[in-house]
């Protein structure tokens, strides 16, 4: 059970409303979904949004295994795009070996959380990735 000393890595990861899941801003006019703070819908220009939950299971549409990244970024890691019931999510594939033999497009994955670290105030940041759903 998440406590007040946890904070999600990004605002669209929800920890305190049932099992961990992602939410998106869904355009109230056309249904387009976005994960960031919006000024308007990029598809239909409307300005009203509803908060919707995204399925936690999905299919890996594409990936890469990053071996070189900016200083401070741990490598190798698997970056990918997951199709969660029709909504595309950008994430890392975690809890599995980051090798080409082990990862393939079309594989089933599910949301998983992990600790990023505890800050000076004792607050734990929780991140998310997707792990093989076997």
């Amino acid at each position, binding site marked *: 059970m998440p406590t007040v000393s946890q904070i999600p890595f990004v*605002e669209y990861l929800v920890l305190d409303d049932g099992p961990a899941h992602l939410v998106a801003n869904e355009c109230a006019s056309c249904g387009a979904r976005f994960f960031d703070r919006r000024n308007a819908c990029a598809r239909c220009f409307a300005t009203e949004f509803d908060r919707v939950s995204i399925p936690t299971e999905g299919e890996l549409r594409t990936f890469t295994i*990053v071996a070189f990244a900016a200083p401070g970024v741990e490598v190798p890691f698997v970056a990918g795009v997951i199709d969660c019931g029709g909504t595309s999510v*950008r994430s890392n594939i975690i809890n599995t070996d980051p090798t080409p033999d082990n990862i393939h497009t079309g594989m089933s994955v599910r949301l998983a959380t992990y600790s990023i670290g505890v800050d000076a105030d004792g607050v734990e940041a929780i991140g998310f990735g997707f792990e093989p759903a076997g």
Partner: protein
Amino acid sequence: MSASDEIFILGINMTKFGKHPDKDVVDLAADAVQAALADGGVTMADMGILAAGNLMGGGGFGQSLQKQVGQTGIPVYNVANACATGATALRTVIMAIKAGECDMGLAVGVEKLSGAGLLSGGNRKADSDTWTPTGRFGAVAPVDGRLGTETMPGVFAQIGMEYGHRYGGVDFELFARISEKNHSHSTLNPLAAYTKAMSLEQIMGDLMIAYPNTRPMCSANCDGGAAAVLVSGSKLKTLSLEQQRRAVKVSASVLTTDPYEEACQVLPDVNTLTRNAARQAYEAAGVGPEDLDLVELHDCFATAELVHYDNLMLCEEGGAADFFNSGATWRTGSTPVNVSGGLQSKGHPISATGIANVWEVCHHLRGEAGDRQIEGAKVGLAHVIGLGSACGIHVLEKSAA
């Protein structure tokens, strides 16, 4: 001056791409500009507009250039559209001529990128002491490496792998073979930064940057510049027969950005905007992909070249792998792609590329490409794409003169 319908390239030049430690960006731009002006038999006095691109430098690049090559008080547009900057400079000059504001103009793009390393989001900042949500995602720490990747090789690797997910027939070896083709082509191009053939085994065994892109499958960071003099058809008729003979017709000049598609804000969609630009370009030029004698497209990574075969409609939808495997895109094939060596071996000084690939096509259309001449070339297409995104396509035709 009235609005003009026809646009020609009167003079054009690219510098050798590579390391130029003793030249600054203005030197490289001046080299390209002075050569392009000489190639066209004109001077700065004849230019009615200058569009200049240099992404890595500070502002006012066009003005800095003018102070070295000729200050005549003409309007300067300093342009930027990521890797489509060069095409944007061409587009800007063409628009001014079409609008009747001048009859001749200069487009230039230059970059110093030797030793630049990864073009990504720069250094990832260290996490701060306390978790504080910031930015549009309310992130408590920088997202690069935690939520996917910001690196270009990684982004374009995903773009190529996604094509495979949709259509199949795609693997690491296929992408490496595309790189093998371009490195082979580069051996005939003395202006390329790298002119070494590489075997499939060498390419696949080289340093992995972001699977499946190894180092030789990534565009080469280098220094370089390119410049073009554009002229209206009516002005061209008043010039010498030799100038008219070597002028290359710009049958289409198109710029698009990425329209909304699901997932486009999650992984850049380089497909829709390229297809849209290609459609507009073919329609404006009155040609189809089957009419193209050569194509210089944006192989920022080997994984990118594959998807653009499809986006530019060089093959049927979903058929890019089969198309490549048929040999069609080698210089000996039915649709030679990147006979210059492409960005992977010719190099990619970002702002110069959109003009340099037009130079390559012109070189063949004028019959001046020597050892690497595509015989009888009459129609060519140049394509660049900058992430964000912007796509520039020019269709060029041998002058009837």
